[in-house]
């Protein structure tokens, strides 16, 4: 079977708009690894019932567990925060997360994450793909994997959307790996300058898809003519150049045009939400990103990630985390409440995590350093049995005392909560099939509903 389906394309010189659109939505133009016939069958087979969605709240930099979800008040390592009671009896979290504390009945807090990776780059890659970097294999991140399993791009909206990603630590973990450019995320709210101050001035336009609308002076007829001309050029060039870069270029254009032609772009227009709603999420990029995530879930997008950067608190940890908690708390809590009100919480999984935790021992700059030995993540919402903690750390937080959770186990749990088989195989770029999650993984059964 040829690697690229170009040889199967119709041979007319020019496709009409309707034909082109039909072929795109059936997945014939621009899909890479699976054959076009297979893809068509898949599209036809997908049922109309509500599919699950996943929202990943990615805490870039390595969020401290001792000051969020696994406090050790009274211990010398504990720091100044108090622990507060929550909706789940016996479960206490940081006093600076009072709103999300009301939703612990829908959460499984994993306190026993444990890895050996304390380097931002390697750990980011590991947590996002489930595999350690191994050239030349391009492991896809969980977002692309979920997009492939649960996506249905017939209305032009991509199945994987990434809000304000902090890509610099591991760019390869923010693409789509060997799944190809069709599953690459659509990025909005790109922070651009990673080392600049966090964007405090935030406007409604910040999360819109840039350049989505064509210039006013180009009418429908001209737009169609242009696309036809472009397609003619691509048809002559791309089939003779079976390289990733060429395929990626062509695919991006197909998806961009599909997005332009659909109504889906309106999802990114937050101005249509009542002002009060926008206030409650918090007028921060992360807060508005969570609101956008809810809107995309409503439209059936299966995977949205929203990044909150700044957790790499080697200095002044307690001031920084208080501020970050002030951003995280209203956004996440409002997201949970909104999803619940709309009856979507049971089919939406929310994952809260970063690439590692932080040292129990406080350093000389009132900070905490990288600590992969024992840290926390949270699973919430659909498919999760809430109101519990998974695993336990020692009194001083330095080791996992009970039920260590390696990364593959965690990601396998995410898959099962979404109704995806973690052992399913995808064809990789090195000629051999690779499972969504490493086959040694054992999902955390007690966390699953």
């Amino acid at each position, binding site marked *: 079977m040829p690697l690229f389906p170009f040889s199967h394309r119709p041979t007319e010189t020019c496709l009409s708009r309707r034909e082109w659109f039909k072929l795109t939505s059936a997945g014939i133009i621009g899909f890479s690894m699976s054959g076009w016939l297979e893809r068509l069958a898949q599209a036809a087979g997908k049922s109309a019932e509500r599919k699950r969605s996943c929202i990943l709240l990615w805490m870039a930099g390595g969020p401290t567990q001792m000051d969020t979800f696994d406090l050790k008040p009274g211990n010398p390592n504990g720091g100044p925060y108090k622990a507060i009671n929550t909706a789940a009896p016996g479960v206490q979290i940081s006093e600076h997360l009072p709103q999300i504390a009301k939703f612990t009945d829908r959460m499984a807090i994993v306190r026993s994450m444990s890895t050996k990776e304390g380097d931002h780059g390697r750990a980011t890659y590991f947590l996002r793909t489930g595999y350690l970097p191994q050239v030349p294999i391009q492991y896809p991140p969980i977002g692309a994997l979920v997009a492939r399993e649960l996506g249905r791009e017939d209305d032009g909206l991509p199945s994987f959307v990434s809000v304000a990603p902090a890509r610099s630590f591991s760019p390869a973990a923010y693409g789509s790996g060997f799944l190809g450019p069709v599953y690459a995320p*659509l990025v909005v709210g790109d922070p651009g300058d990673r080392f600049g101050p966090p964007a405090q001035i935030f406007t409604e336009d910040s999360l819109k898809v840039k350049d989505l609308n064509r210039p006013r002076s180009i009418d429908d007829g001209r737009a169609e003519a*242009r696309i036809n001309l472009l397609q003619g050029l691509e048809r002559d060039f791309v089939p003779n*150049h079976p390289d990733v870069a060429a395929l990626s270029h062509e695919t991006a254009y197909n998806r961009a045009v599909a997005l332009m032609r659909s109504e889906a772009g309106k999802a990114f227009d937050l101005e249509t939400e009542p002002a009060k709603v926008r206030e409650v999420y918090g007028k921060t990029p992360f807060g508005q990103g969570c609101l956008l995530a809810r809107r995309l879930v409503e439209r059936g997008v299966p995977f949205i990630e929203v990044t909150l950067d700044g957790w790499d608190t080697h200095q002044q940890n307690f001031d920084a985390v208080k501020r970050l908690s002030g951003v995280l708390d209203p956004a996440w809590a409002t997201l949970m409440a909104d999803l619940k009100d709309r009856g979507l919480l049971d089919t939406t999984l929310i994952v809260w995590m970063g690439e590692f935790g932080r040292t129990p021992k406080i350093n000389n*700059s009132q900070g905490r350093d990288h600590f992969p030995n024992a840290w926390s993540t949270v699973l919430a919402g659909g498919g999760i049995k809430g109101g519990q903690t998974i695993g336990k750390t020692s009194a001083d937080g330095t080791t996992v005392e009970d039920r260590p959770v390696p990364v593959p186990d965690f990601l396998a749990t995410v898959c099962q909560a979404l109704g995806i088989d973690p052992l399913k195989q995808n064809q990789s770029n090195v000629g051999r099939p690779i499972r969504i999650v490493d086959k040694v993984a054992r999902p955390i059964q007690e966390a699953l509903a």
Partner: protein
Amino acid sequence: MNYPRQWMLGCIFLVAVDPLAAAPPDSGLEKALIKPSPTVGEASALAERIDQLLASKWQEAQVEPSDLTDDAEFMRRIYLDVAGRIPTVSEARAFLAANGQDKRPKLIEKLLASPAYANHFTNVWGELLIPEARAANRLRFLEPGFDAWLRKHFSDNTRYDQTVRELIAAELFDKSKPGASPYSRVGRTSPISFYLAKELKPENLAAATARIFMGVKLECAQCHDHPHAKWTRQQFWETAAFFACFEGQNANGFVNNAKEVPERHEIVMPGGARVVQAAFLDGGKPDWKNRISPRVALAEWLTRPENPYFARATVNRLWGHFFGNAIVEPIDDLIGENKPSHPELLEELARQFAAHDFDFKYLVRAITLSRAYQLSSRSKSADPPDVRLFARMAIKGLSPEQLFDSLVQATGYREDKSDPNRVFDPISARQEFLTKFAQADKRTEAQTSILQALALMNGRFVHSATTPEVGETLAAVLDAPFFDTAGRIETLYLATLSRKPRSEEAEKLIKFVNKAKTREESRTALADVFWALLNSSEFNLNH
């Protein structure tokens, strides 16, 4: 590029503008413009060797290499790889029309002598050496002095080992001005930004130096002995100790108050009180009794001809620049799990590079004169051979600088050069492009995102360029009085794809344009053709 419209018209269809093409062969003008280097002949010899070694693997694998590129394909590729941009219309017409067996080697020499070569390699090597300064607005002030230093060396074709020694042994502090901040010297033509971008931290400097100049990835050993890596944690810190002379580094990276203790060559390994002495990766130590500066000692050890890694790492990187894939991948990990695809080739290139005084241009010539470099990227089958055989040229994505500079070239865009803050202005068209099209992936795995596609289709830049009254190139093509439709289409192809349209392409497009009923309509039809060309894969990729 400030072209008045009339000059633009002239450029587009007067071949005589190109001095080289106009000069009859062997005229004094030609000789004056190309100074043949004594190493050109030897570069050809190395090029032949490259071809021999690659061909023997093709035979072994029973693989047929691609056809040779035609002139247009070669021209566009060599311009992008050496000069960082596509050719102008007149350059393209001149080369395509020229005769002579040696027209390709002549073009290579012309490009190597041009300022564009130095600029392009400054961009490429700058990205390699101080990526921090390109990634962050607040560090951008580190670029100009460093770029000027790089540009001078590429322009002068300074021995590469000397350039690297100058970098590693750079003087940050003026002894006549004790207490002055190292930032006070940043504006000058010097390599000190390398140190400042790494925040004067020994661990950053050690990791970067080992990775870039030796193809040794030490960073994994920074925190612990890695089970699979060759290096121990101790060795990492022994290398870092060569950079232990700085103190006063701030936690936030700003090193205004830093000082140097010039002879210090020991460092405390973090997490304990253990003090480590500087030592080379092969276990040797400098003779400290001679009071040699640690950084000078490291620079000399690293670049000496007996060090196998320096030449190999450089050669591997340059090969990767031209072929997309390097001989050892990943490109900066020579000692990792992955073996060279052509070990003998790597050794030969490294040996000859060292033997020829680490002459950078010699190496570039040898690679670009080879037949392998000149193979087409067009694939004969849907199932092309293993990329590691180099039997077909791989397609490379364009760097953001290449893309922008090529777009500027193709569209006749005129930047407002009167603004002195142009370099630092975050929202200049150039800066906007560089940010939007930043590529972290390997060139052969370059991904185009939906946002990039939208930017090129609907964004301001391309819209202006494809509006008949506004875009410079487009206006010139439309206004030229003695062009027919065929001539206009041919010029648009030359401006963007650097080739003439094939007859079936021309036929189709002439028919499209001639459907127009008014002059206005035919102008917009041509504008639409231009738009399609600028958005095509063929324009946006280096093939």
